[in-house]
């Protein structure tokens, strides 16, 4: 049995998840990366996407969507700081189209305000990613 990596998902309001996992795949800014025990220490920003947790073997045991954030890897722990995170099971597919529309409107509304535009675009990408992933599976 290989060593396990401690995966912690933290939101500003509370510790969302803390598990021992064999491998965790994280959507890094410059491409997805998998974290196993003994990974090189790393700090990375995240893009909107999904975190796949493999607790045992090569089956995804839980999948969590994040709208960006930060990941820190040090020896046998992986910490993800995310402001917005949703578990796969918590997604309400019926509501998604409406939310995507709202996010699109947000992008249009933001106009030239750079800060707002970036935030709105991030949100849209996040929702679109959720929509894509959930319809395939």
């Amino acid at each position, binding site marked *: 049995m290989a060593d396990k990596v401690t995966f*912690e998902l*933290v*939101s*500003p*309001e*509370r*510790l969302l998840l803390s598990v021992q996992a064999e491998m965790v795949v994280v959507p*890094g*800014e*410059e491409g997805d990366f998998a974290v196993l025990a003994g990974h*090189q*220490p*790393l*700090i*990375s*920003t995240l893009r909107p996407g999904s975190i796949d947790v493999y607790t045992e073997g090569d089956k995804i045991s839980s999948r969590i969507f994040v709208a960006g954030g*930060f990941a*820190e890897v*040090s*020896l046998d722990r992986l*910490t993800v*700081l995310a*402001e917005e995170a949703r578990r796969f099971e918590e997604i309400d597919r019926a509501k998604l189209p409406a939310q995507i529309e709202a996010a699109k409107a947000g992008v249009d509304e933001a106009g030239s305000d750079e*800060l707002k535009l970036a935030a709105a675009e991030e949100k849209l990408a996040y929702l679109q990613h959720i929509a894509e992933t959930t319809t395939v599976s």
Partner: protein
Amino acid sequence: MPSLKSLRVRINSVKSTQKITKAMKMVAASKLRRAQEAAEQARPYSARMERMLASLASGLAGADDAPRLMVGTGRDETHLLIVATGERGLCGGFNSSIARAARRKAQELLGQGKTVKILAVGRKGRDNLKRDLSRLIIGDFDFSKVKRISFVEAAEIAERVQAMFAAGEFDVATIFYNRFVSVISQVVTEQQLIPAKLPELSEQPDLGGAIYEFEPDETEILEKLLPRNLAVQVYRALLENSASEQGARMSAMDNATRNAGEMINKLTLVYNRTRQAAITKELIEIISGAEAL
């Protein structure tokens, strides 16, 4: 000598006041517990963010291209004071002590010829500062409709502050809030937000001799991390504040309940004495009436 009836009315009114203060104390106690829990749960995030910042900053100290949120504008002319207070009164000196600290700081800065701008968070602080510093207040946040402070509110404040900073409207930002020590003690704290005071790395995390790799690079991560950190700091201040507010209210209401009890005792004493006097007076009247016959 007040009449018996008026005394009875007063005792009853003090009794109902005592009931109210007692109820408020209980409510504050349960709210305090919830506020403390929220503060407790928010700790992992801020602790980890601090650690990340510290390891990032140690590799970046003194670099020229460091983000402006960290190094500031290089000037010290315009100060932004973010004054975080509660939305409600009846909590002892909670609101006024924050307002007093902010006012003192504002006057000190004005005395040095600097420009001061005030962003008031919470209705009570705004009303208090409005009296003499209304021309300095550039905006306020009213969370009286928000039941529980969540990260959303903090992010809202942080966004506003950041937009102002980007527009060059101030050089230094400081937040005023009450740090929760215990139910009977809250300490007014001023914390500098911009330029960010980066935490010193208390203990080097054990990396087994390896060093951090950064993706993309340090500056870019820091540029994303610092605004978040700003929101986290604000959030932490708001949480501390709400715990302090409930604590202050709890002890204030406890005092009020005790005072009401004392008052009731005193009034009851006067009431009984008056009643006794009236009885004695009547007796004397009857006896002297009988003697006169």
